[in-house]
């Protein structure tokens, strides 16, 4: 058995169904060995999107996503995708080929110090130096990526190691990492403190972050909130933790969130942050939050607790496990007065938008589209004005809302949706992007067609990099610089060139029928929506 055969065998042992990648000489032994198994090899059109596709796959399947690239430029192209996964704590194993170990450090053709380059965007990285280490390192990589605070792990494998003979292959049953032991169970004393605080509180609120979804604790959160009548708001990454129309859900917080959600958080006397980082987009002035509020911060990563705001009650552990412990506690408090106040806040929210009727209104469109989506539908939002509209007006039922939250990587939606499709062959999946973000990933239409990973794509066309244009409108008195997207292709013709059915919609006339047709069409389809070029999110 060669090192490359061992790598392929390790992936089989881990139950990997598919890898997203792009070959090159330095990773050729691995791809050759992959011919001997049933793991699907999906060829993306640029390496960054291999990481995004693995990211979408991981988020939908709950398993580790795997992406593969060659040495040098192949590996460096992965970095943005790795950083995107790191910022959102998505478990990936990224495998890169490397030049011959005897040539390492001599700047030969297609050599890049990838373990050094990704250091600040990975949970851990390996450069394999002995063929015998392959099984142990793969086992550890999958374990590290998927435990504790999840994240990407990179394995760099020189070509001579891939070609070296490995006499005995045995995949370790378990890992033996002396220095890595993430906390799973929440501390009983801290849990008791949380309940003591809840008993005293009159106005408690839960702020759910992406960690709730990552630890697969959505149903636990919903159960806890309903059993005890505690209202919930969410961060951007926490969208979907509660169904949008749940009576106890009060929307997304933050500078792009609902004003009643922010008001609810500011007025609360007990704020329970769960799996949320208290990051700058969600909470502008963290110090102000804790002025009159007891802050409970629950996270699997102890370093997140107290990073941006000092909590009154820190609680470290896996969120699902903590909710299981919460179930054992009884709480007979009545917060109905507080709920009534919050309902008044919500009712008082007035529509802020005055759309131009000559165009499609993205806000109304997104609500209609997501309402018409099936119960378990997956909505993948890109980055830009479209993301702000998506998180503001999208209705989640029991499905998922995926987006690049921490890094805000444009071009995320299409490759992530393709990866999501590989994980969920029967679910409805729609990628929603702008004409800027679409053009960052439109090469992946070929990946979708080649591998039959069909998705629906919505493109909001305003001819601008809208969110930057909006920023320039507000900050530079509408002096626009480098935001005009003239020169873009005819998106419908482009889609048709790939064999994708397309429709262009210029206004709201007959929009319901058009959405119905788009959703029910059996196959890949692109919908281009002409929106007001000067429209702003707020």
């Amino acid at each position, binding site marked *: 058995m060669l090192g490359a055969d061992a790598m392929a065998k390790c992936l089989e042992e881990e139950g990997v169904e598919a890898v997203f990648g792009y070959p090159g000489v330095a990773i050729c032994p691995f791809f050759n060995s992959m011919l001997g198994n049933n793991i699907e090899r999906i060829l993306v059109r640029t390496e960054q999107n291999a990481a995004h596709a693995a990211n979408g796959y991981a988020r939908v399947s709950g398993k580790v996503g795997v992406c593969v690239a060659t040495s040098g430029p192949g590996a460096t192209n992965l970095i943005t995708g790795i950083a995107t996964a790191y910022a959102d704590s998505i478990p990936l194993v990224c495998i890169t080929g490397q030049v011959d170990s005897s040539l390492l450090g001599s700047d030969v053709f297609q050599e890049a110090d990838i*373990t*050094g380059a990704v*250091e*600040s965007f990975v*949970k*851990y990285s390996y*450069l394999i130096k002995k063929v015998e280490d392959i099984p142990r390192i793969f086992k550890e990589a999958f374990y*590290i990526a998927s435990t504790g605070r999840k994240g990407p792990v990179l394995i760099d494998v020189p070509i001579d190691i891939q070609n070296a003979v490995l006499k005995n292959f045995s995949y370790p049953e378990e890992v033996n*990492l*002396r*220095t*890595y032991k993430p906390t799973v169970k929440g501390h009983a004393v801290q849990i008791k403190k949380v309940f003591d605080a809840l008993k005293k509180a009159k106005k408690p609120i839960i702020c759910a972050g992406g960690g709730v979804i990552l630890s697969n604790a959505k149903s636990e959160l919903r159960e806890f909130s309903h059993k005890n009548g505690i209202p919930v708001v969410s961060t951007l990454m926490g969208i979907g933790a509660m169904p949008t129309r749940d009576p106890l859900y009060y929307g997304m917080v933050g500078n792009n969130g609902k004003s009643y959600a922010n008001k609810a958080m500011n007025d609360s006397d007990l704020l329970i942050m769960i799996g949320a980082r208290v990051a700058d987009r969600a909470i502008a002035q963290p110090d102000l939050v804790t002025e009159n509020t007891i802050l409970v911060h629950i996270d699997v*990563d*102890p*370093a997140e607790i*107290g*990073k941006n705001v*000092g909590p009154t009650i820190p609680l470290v552990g896996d969120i699902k496990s903590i909710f299981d412990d919460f179930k054992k506690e009884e709480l007979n408090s009545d917060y109905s007065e507080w709920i009534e106040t919050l309902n008044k806040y919500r009712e008082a929210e007035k529509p802020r938008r005055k759309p131009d009727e000559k165009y499609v209104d993205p806000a109304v469109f997104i609500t209609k589209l997501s309402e018409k989506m099936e119960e378990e539908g997956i909505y993948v939002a890109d980055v830009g004005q479209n993301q702000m509209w998506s998180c503001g007006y999208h209705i989640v039922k029991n499905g998922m809302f995926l987006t690049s939250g921490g890094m805000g990587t444009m071009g995320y939606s299409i490759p992530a949706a393709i990866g999501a499709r590989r994980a969920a062959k029967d679910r409805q999946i729609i990628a929603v992007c702008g004409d800027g973000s679409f053009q960052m990933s439109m090469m992946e239409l070929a990946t979708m067609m080649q591998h039959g990973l069909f998705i629906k794509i919505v493109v909001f066309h305003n001819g601008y990099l809208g969110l930057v244009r909006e920023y320039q409108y507000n900050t530079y008195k509408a002096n626009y610089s480098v935001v005009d997207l003239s020169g873009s292709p005819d998106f419908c013709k482009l889609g048709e060139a790939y064999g994708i059915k397309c429709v262009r919609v210029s206004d709201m006339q007959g929009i319901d029928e058009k959405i119905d047709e788009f959703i029910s069409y059996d196959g890949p389809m692109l919908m281009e929506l002409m929106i007001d070029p000067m429209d702003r999110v707020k």
Partner: protein
Amino acid sequence: MNRKVFQLIADNTSGVLSRIAGLFSRRGYNIESITAGVTTDPNYSRITIVTTGDNDILEQIEKQVAKLVDVESIVELNPGDSVFRELIMIKVKADAAQRVEISTVVDIFRASIVDVTVDSLIIELIGDQPKIEAFLAMLESYDILETARTGIAGLSRGTESIVKL
């Protein structure tokens, strides 16, 4: 700004020091000194870092370092309960007359002269930082050509060790 000495036990594998130093540089933490060496168990390294920052920063440093996959544990070495030592080598310009004067100071500080030429000396001193600063102050009136300092190493007093190896 507070000053703290952290001691950590990390896996003795390649790249550990670079991961720790990289963490400090990208998060903007200060390193006053860092020393590393293998422990009695060759699987582990003992690393001593002297750093400064306000209390929030120092807490973050401890948590972020603890989070590194290679790091087994990190503790603060409290000055009251710990012994610190640093080694300094000082090259001083000295003629025959100065040599005698300097050697008196060297004796008082229990330092030693480890190299002599016609017009220079190299002095070696091991001590905690106040002692080294005091010694340097005594030599101020001479022409110091070069100094080399190791950064501090430390251990906590008593039978307790920060990690059972």
